[in-house]
């Protein structure tokens, strides 16, 4: 063993030296790496330094594994781009690029000090699927890349506060040879890579991100250069992301948008800023008598038309959810679950129907050039007494004095940056964007709740944020008038919300939409119960105590066969990804940060079998994720199917 210590480095040195001389500079970057890797591996094998060459092709693998050619739209984790050979070849390319001497010692990946590389991966505590995925990833990386991965559970909020976000500091750094300044640092992108969060971490699957399939331009928040709004991992794009996004912004039709996005998505698939794993559908079990749920991204848009059994008003619609609601104050709420709870009693500006087309609820949006948008507010909307009718003034005041004000941290603040809003009539107002965006409604930015001006005016004058957050009328949704399908009768913080049918619902009198809207909603009562235990939620679904509940993938088949439950697969835009920390507090296995190198991220992607993960953890009920769009999106690069 001791002899190897002396001979191997010598051989390595010699081989490296020779390879450097042999390098052909005219080749593509990728090819050059491939050649030197081959030579290196071959010479090392000859000297007997490569550790155990066990059966299954240890030696032959080393020399044959260099054959990797990455297409324009590489699909890592399946077929040829999966396995120990592919992963190790890609990893070796990364080692070349790194200034530190990482290598493979037999099966294990070792640091320059010859310790095995050990990194950790965080997953959401208490979530089975998350834990199983993390365990699987650890196993795959161990087998295919020789990395020792430690699995850690962590609570989502804690991870967000201590690991994912950092104190915004700003700064400057060189990206692709150019100086980039972080002028507007955010907690999710506090500055260049040197600016980090409080705690060190290597990998995480705690958060999945939205891929914005309705309007992929929104993804500029993630990938528009190195200093966009949301970049917790510190990814510096090596392709001209800013240029391509700028091109996309100039697009005047959906066709042009689609074209410019093909190149963006190809690059994202190549560079793997986040290691993309899969898209899983939401599996929801419903009361079999329930009419209305569809297996569509916009499932639930026509909720007032849902009924049980016969299309007349009867019964109660009860759902169960796992997470409590922090607040029901529409101005400050940021949670999905609470958003659903608010939506029962208070409509927002618009929604999208089952064809993903704009459907106006409170106001109709129209534009000619994509830059100036006209909002036509319905005239039949009423707040509760004493606030009177809903007019354009309420919306304009809301945007100007709350969303655009410095002192008020409302949830929709960032949506109205740089937008000029002006009232142009009693029921009409206009919004002017900084640059044209034909798909502006699909970014959900112009979505507004109706809030009476008189209610918030006193707080605005005092700049009283706490008062606004704690105002009882806002919290208990007491001002909603005819603006919601139901009225909130009780919010019991520990156990959920209860509603009663709203006879005055404005949607009954509108022209658009399905016929049943004129009678909606078709339940006397509704409720949302907060139940922490998954077994209890499913039990409630089985016994009929709940009309819908989410079903975990491993139980899909048994519920599918169950007559008392109808199961539907609803697509979601959220993906499952591994976030790898490219900031200074990432890569805690040794010097440098291998995550910053594209080939290493590719190696990670190649080391994990997407299909095995889908079959094992998701029972086949998910699809592999290669680039930043789900397959059913109209912007998915179809040509590379």
């Amino acid at each position, binding site marked *: 063993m001791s002899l190897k210590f002396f001979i191997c480095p010598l051989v390595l040195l010699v081989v490296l030296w020779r390879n450097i001389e042999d390098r052909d500079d005219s080749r593509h970057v990728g090819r050059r790496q491939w050649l030197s890797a081959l030579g290196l591996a071959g010479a090392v094998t000859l000297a007997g330094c490569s550790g155990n060459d066990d059966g299954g092709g240890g030696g032959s693998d080393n020399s044959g594994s260099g054959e990797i050619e990455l297409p324009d739209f590489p699909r890592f984790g399946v077929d040829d781009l999966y396995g120990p050979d592919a992963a190790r070849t890609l990893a070796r390319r990364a080692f070349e690029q790194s200034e530190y001497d990482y290598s493979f010692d037999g099966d294990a990946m070792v640091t320059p000090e010859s310790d095995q590389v050990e990194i950790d991966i965080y997953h959401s505590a208490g979530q089975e699927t998350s834990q199983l995925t993390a365990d699987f990833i650890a196993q795959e990386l161990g087998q295919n890349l020789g990395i020792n991965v430690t699995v850690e559970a962590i609570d989502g909020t804690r991870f967000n506060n201590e690991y994912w*976000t950092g104190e915004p500091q700003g700064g400057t750094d060189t990206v692709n040879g150019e100086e980039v300044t972080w002028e507007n640092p*955010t907690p999710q992108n506090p500055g260049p890579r040197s600016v980090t969060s409080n705690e060190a971490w290597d990998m995480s699957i705690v958060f999945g991100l939205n891929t914005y399939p309705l309007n992929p331009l929104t993804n500029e928040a993630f990938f528009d250069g190195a200093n966009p709004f949301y970049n917790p991992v510190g990814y510096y794009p090596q392709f001209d992301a800013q240029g391509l996004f700028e091109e996309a912004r100039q697009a005047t039709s959906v066709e042009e948008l689609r074209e410019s996005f093909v190149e963006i998505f190809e690059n994202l698939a190549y560079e793997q800023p986040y290691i993309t794993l899969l898209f899983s559908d939401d599996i929801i079990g419903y009361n079999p008598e329930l009419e209305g749920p569809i297996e569509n991204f916009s499932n639930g848009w026509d909720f007032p038309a849902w009924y049980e059994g016969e299309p007349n008003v009867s019964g109660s619609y009860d759902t169960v959810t796992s997470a409590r609601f922090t607040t029901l104050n529409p101005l400050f709420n940021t949670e999905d679950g609470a958003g659903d709870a608010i939506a029962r009693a208070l409509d927002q500006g618009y929604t999208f129907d089952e064809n993903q087309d704009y459907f106006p609820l409170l106001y109709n949006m129209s534009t000619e050039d994509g830059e100036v948008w006209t909002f036509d507010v319905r005239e039949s909307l009423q707040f509760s007494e004493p606030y009177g009718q809903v007019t354009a003034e309420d919306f304009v005041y809301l945007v100007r004095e709350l969303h655009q004000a410095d002192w008020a*941290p409302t949830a929709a603040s960032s949506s109205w940056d740089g937008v000029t809003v002006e009232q142009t009539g009693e029921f009409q107002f206009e919004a002017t964007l900084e640059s044209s965006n034909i798909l502006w409604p699909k970014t959900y930015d112009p979505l507004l709740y109706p809030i009476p001006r008189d209610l918030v005016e006193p707080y605005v004058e005092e700049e009283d944020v706490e008062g606004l957050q704690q105002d009882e009328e806002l919290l208990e949704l007491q001002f909603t008038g005819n603006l919601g399908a139901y009225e909130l009768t009780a919010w*019991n913080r*520990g156990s959920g919300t*209860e509603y009663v049918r709203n006879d005055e619902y404005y949607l009954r009198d509108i022209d658009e939409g399905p016929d049943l809207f004129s009678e909606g909603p078709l339940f006397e009562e509704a409720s949302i*119960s907060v139940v922490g235990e998954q077994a209890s939620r499913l039990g409630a679904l089985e*016994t009929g*105590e709940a009309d819908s509940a989410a079903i975990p993938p491993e139980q899909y088949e048994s519920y599918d066969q169950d007559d008392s439950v109808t199961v539907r697969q609803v697509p979601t835009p959220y993906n499952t990804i591994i976030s790898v920390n490219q900031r200074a507090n990432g890569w805690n296995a040794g010097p440098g940060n291998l995550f910053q190198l594209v080939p290493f991220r590719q190696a990670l992607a190649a080391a994990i079998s997407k299909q095995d993960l889908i079959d094992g953890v998701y029972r086949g009920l998910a699809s592999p994720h290669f680039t930043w769009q789900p397959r059913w999106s109209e912007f998915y690069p179809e040509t590379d199917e």
Partner: protein
Amino acid sequence: MGFGRYVGARVLWAAVVSLIIVTVTFLLISASPNPAVQRAATQAALQGGDPATAAERARELRGLNEPLHVRYFDFVRSIYTLDWGWSVSRSQPVMEAVTQALYYTAQYSIPWTILTVILGPLVGVYSAANMYSWKDHAATGFAFFGYAIPNFFFGIVLLLIFGVWLEWIPITYNTDVAVFSVENAIQLAVPVFVLVTGSIGAVMRVSRNESAEFQNADFMKTAKAKGVSPLRAYAYHVMRPTLVPLSTTLVGQLLALFLGASLLVEVVFAIPGLGRLTYEALLAQDMSLVLGTTLFFTFVAVIGNLLEDLVFTVLDPRISFDDR
């Protein structure tokens, strides 16, 4: 010392203890980062404002700028005047959150306490009277079973059997139901059953052991010789001295169980009580609520210990205050 002065001294001591615990809690919490400040920074950044100034303002608003001792005094004062702040994770005042949760906790913990206190000593004395017979073994076995089986395990199994398979009880707790109705009794039956079987074992065993000492004491033989009926002999002569050491363990046990068991039972049966309140507050890093519940439990524990001591001295005439 006299009884009055003794009680006075104990109460004073209880206040001191609560102050110490409050201090320790305060120190623990101030040592950890305050999420509200971070939130303020986030929001400011979202609007292109300067997060550093926003964080400063947030600190100012919450008085976190003040030196530690000023914050501490403010903190102590607000605690004892019952102004416990606003819970961010529930959007209501902390006092309101605690009282609401207490309302639900009381609905199952009061029947639980009553049943344990009544049934426990009875079963224990009965068991001691028939020591080592099959009755003793059966009673002991039952008590041990209840004590040993983890509450949460028992709870989920029973919920599965009676809720999902037999559908005799509702699976999710309905807060709408009137407190004294049959429906409420049904949905609370299983949680209370699980809790009682858990706590009765300890109580029963201690009372069995303690009363065993007295079964064979001389005064019992005297009573028997005198012709005192066995029932009166047990009830009056045995129970009274048994209650002395029993009360100490009783209060201690109940308190410990109250806190731990209640949280798990609430999680399993989805009851929005005090235990879950604490737990969720912790997860949400809602510091004012965490403080509020911790203090509540502290006060309960302190008062419980105080009661334990007082009961001990009242019941046992052998103890003179001068010795302590």
